[in-house]
């Protein structure tokens, strides 16, 4: 029994058992998981990976170059294009490095529950590599906004995610401008509701939980002003415009603001000239504080909203129990959330303490990433990927950081268990089994990877395979290894 619980801890709550992990977890499975709940447990070494600021500075430098005109300082069009191309290339390479570093970390970390917990929240607050503007930010977003905050409070995590340059760019808030500001008038630009809508619909209360279109617009207005510093933003605000008519003290103030936007290039800033003036009314509550405080105040209230607790509790129960979790499980998580004021450490403990999540049969069908990480933990990264992670991810249809929408990757069986997907998984398993070390039998591998989760039927099929390769293939494709 203890061994079964240990196997459940390592596979369902963790990322799949590394050698010896089931035994490590078996003496006190829940305690083993709870020991991973610590402020830095989900952190990942950044190594040579670029920060969001470094990525943005490089981009802004390449794209913000003033064009050469009328003998003024500037660079030729060719030089601009060349350096823009190079930056794009470096950023694309950087994404590949992010994917590999993240895979290596997940395959090796002893804090596998913390990693799963992180990935849940990273998917909840999806920033996907949708276009050139955001490609370089997806990795830094996870490392800078999500990982450090997954065991703090939901409101802190929500704030860190919302105000990170990655999210501001991905959901267009960086270019959203208060409609009644001078900048909007001058630039013929205006409000972009995207981020406000997704925060309400995806990140906090959930769709159909009582907010209205008017709430979205008001919230979007409160979010105006929050953008990413840099020469482009400076031009947007009109601080570098050639035809700007300014004089006296006003000019000095603008000058200082322009210097700050350059100095803090690549960081999130609040720019009053872009912010919609006046108080905001969201969900019947009026926010009349200074413009810079409005969005954060609204976010705090959203984090404390019972609909948010319900939404988060439902998603967590779906992730750890089953696609259709019992109401009792959701209720327990919701209560833990409300009682603790959205303390994510408390919530993580409540998830571990859900008896509903410790059922003997694995019910959650692994996403391709989960399958690959668990295989890498059990069989090694070389066998799992054969040195070509990108091709493997692509073939199994889940490119990391490539979620199809802000809603993130689906977390249900139907989305991942299509017939072609199974065929692809089989082809993959077949190639992995040929790369696996011969130091152990398929039965030993099965035992190490799944412990007592492996059914008698699976054990027999693996033991009776006619070759080691076939045995490994059957183990990897077994119903229990395909699920968690």
């Amino acid at each position, binding site marked *: 029994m203890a061994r079964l619980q240990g196997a459940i801890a390592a596979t369902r709550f963790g990322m799949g058992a590394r050698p010896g992990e089931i035994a490590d977890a078996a003496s006190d499975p829940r305690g083993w998981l709870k020991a991973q709940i610590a402020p830095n447990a989900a952190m990942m070494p950044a190594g040579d990976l670029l920060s969001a600021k470094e990525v943005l500075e490089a981009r802004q430098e390449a794209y913000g170059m003033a064009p050469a005109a009328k003998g003024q300082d500037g660079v030729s069009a060719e030089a601009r294009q060349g350096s823009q191309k190079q930056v794009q290339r470096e950023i694309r390479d950087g994404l590949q490095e992010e994917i590999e570093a993240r895979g290596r970390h997940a395959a090796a970390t002893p804090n596998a529950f913390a990693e799963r917990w992180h990935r849940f929240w990273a998917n909840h607050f999806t920033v996907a590599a949708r276009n050139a503007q955001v490609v370089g930010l997806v990795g830094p977003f996870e490392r800078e906004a999500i990982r450090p905050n997954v065991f703090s409070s939901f409101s802190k995590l929500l704030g860190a995610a919302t105000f990170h340059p990655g999210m501001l760019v991905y959901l267009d808030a960086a270019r959203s401008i208060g409609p009644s500001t001078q900048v909007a008038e001058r630039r013929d630009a205006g409000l972009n509701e995207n981020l406000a809508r997704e925060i309400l619909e995806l990140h906090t209360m959930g769709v159909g939980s009582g907010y209205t279109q008017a709430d979205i617009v008001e919230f979007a207005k409160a979010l105006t002003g929050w953008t990413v510093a840099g020469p482009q933003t400076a031009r947007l605000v009109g601080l570098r415009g050639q035809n700007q008519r300014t004089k006296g003290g006003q000019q000095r103030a603008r000058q200082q603001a322009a210097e700050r936007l350059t100095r803090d290039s690549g960081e999130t800033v609040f720019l009053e000239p872009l912010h919609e003036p006046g108080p905001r009314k969201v969900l019947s509550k009026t926010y009349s504080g200074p413009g810079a405080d409005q969005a954060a105040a609204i976010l705090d209230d959203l984090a404390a909203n019972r609909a948010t607790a319900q939404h988060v509790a439902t998603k967590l129960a779906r992730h750890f129990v089953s696609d259709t979790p019992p109401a009792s499980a959701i209720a327990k998580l919701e209560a833990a959330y409300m009682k603790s004021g959205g303390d994510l450490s408390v919530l993580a403990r409540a998830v571990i303490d859900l008896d509903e999540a410790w059922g003997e049969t694995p019910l959650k069908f692994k996403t391709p990433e989960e399958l690959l990480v668990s295989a890498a933990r059990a069989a090694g990264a070389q066998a799992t990927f054969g040195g070509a992670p990108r091709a493997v991810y692509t073939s199994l249809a889940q490119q990391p950081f490539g979620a199809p929408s802000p809603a993130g990757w689906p977390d249900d069986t139907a989305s991942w268990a299509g*017939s072609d997907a199974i065929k692809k998984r089989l082809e993959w398993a077949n190639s992995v089994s040929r790369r696996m070390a011969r130091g152990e039998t398929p039965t030993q591998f099965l035992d190490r990877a799944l412990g007592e989760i492996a059914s008698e039927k699976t054990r027999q099929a693996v033991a009776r395979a006619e070759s080691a390769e076939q045995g490994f293939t059957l183990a990897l494709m077994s119903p229990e290894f395909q699920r968690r």
Partner: protein
Amino acid sequence: MIQLNRRSLLLAGCAATLVSIAPGARANTNPAQGRKLIVVILRGAMDGVAALPKLDDPDIRAHRAALIDVKATPLSNGFALHSAMPTLAAMYASKEAAFVPALAGPYRERSHFEAQDLLECGEVAKVSADGWLNRALQRAPAAYSAVSIGPSQPLILRGASPNTSSWSPAVLPEASGDTLARLLDLYENDPVLKPALSSALGADSVAGAIKMDSMGGGRGGPAQYVAQLQAAGNFLAQPDGPEIAVVSLEGWDTHTQQNQMLQQRFTALDNGIRALKASLGETWKKTALVAVSEFGRTVRVNGGGGTDHGTGGLAILAGGAIKGGRMIGDWPGLKPAALFENRDLMPAVDARQVFKGLLRDQLGWAQNDLDTSVFHDSANAKALTGLV
């Protein structure tokens, strides 16, 4: 060497993956003098008693009447060869083939993987990281090299000697029909995976794949035997080709429907040996082939019209270099008391004795190296004399 290999790939007529190239430098005075050795591993445990039934054994019908091929070709000493292997029967008549019944390695458990690994690494109990053929290459009388025909470098050739290469007729390893059938069985009660896999393959195409498989077409298994053996012949027949080839033939685990399965597999193996002889050309005269399984199968029929994992098996020897037309070793008999653990054919000859005899007499290895380094501490498994 690269060119030679490429050419032979074209000869084999398949898309190819060449994993590594053995160095081609070779002294003109190669002690092999054109002699070749082919080691065929029949993975999954071939039923030696079904291949070569001893029809005059008084107990054979009581044990397995349903599994005896009534059309088997009588050879000698009361043995007959399954009728699906007419080429081998003809080779036996022309003294180009011989058999070693009741052959087994020193291993006495019944796990395919452990047994295959031990067979390939040449150890008694503990699997090592290198194979006996690789260790043999390290102590070869000259710069011999070996090629393996199969999707991955088998353990038998892994190790410190770089004089190995491997070649596979398929670029991407596809799951064999047998694996698909086992997976469908494993998914029997799975509401998600069973319909997904069935629909991916199409219920008809699954049946088709398995059927094609057993008929010598389609994915993996017997479908590849002819191409694999023919490719081995092409490699060895090159003027500067390797001295040794290893061929892995999968699909011998006949727990059910053994008669049908073996009919197809023996046919494919026999066709493969005929194709091998053709592709070797003149080289056939100087070639010795040995085909073995990791172990044999139960003497008695099981409940599914098949047999389960056993012990004593069979070695097939073929080639112009083989002193053929005879049975080698002893027949322990099929009386219940003579069986190993009252279920399996009692081993009479150690597989290492055959390997050592061939290495020494076909390609010139030193007896002492064979007893100590190639097969560690194996002096008590004496090399058979007079195989070639």
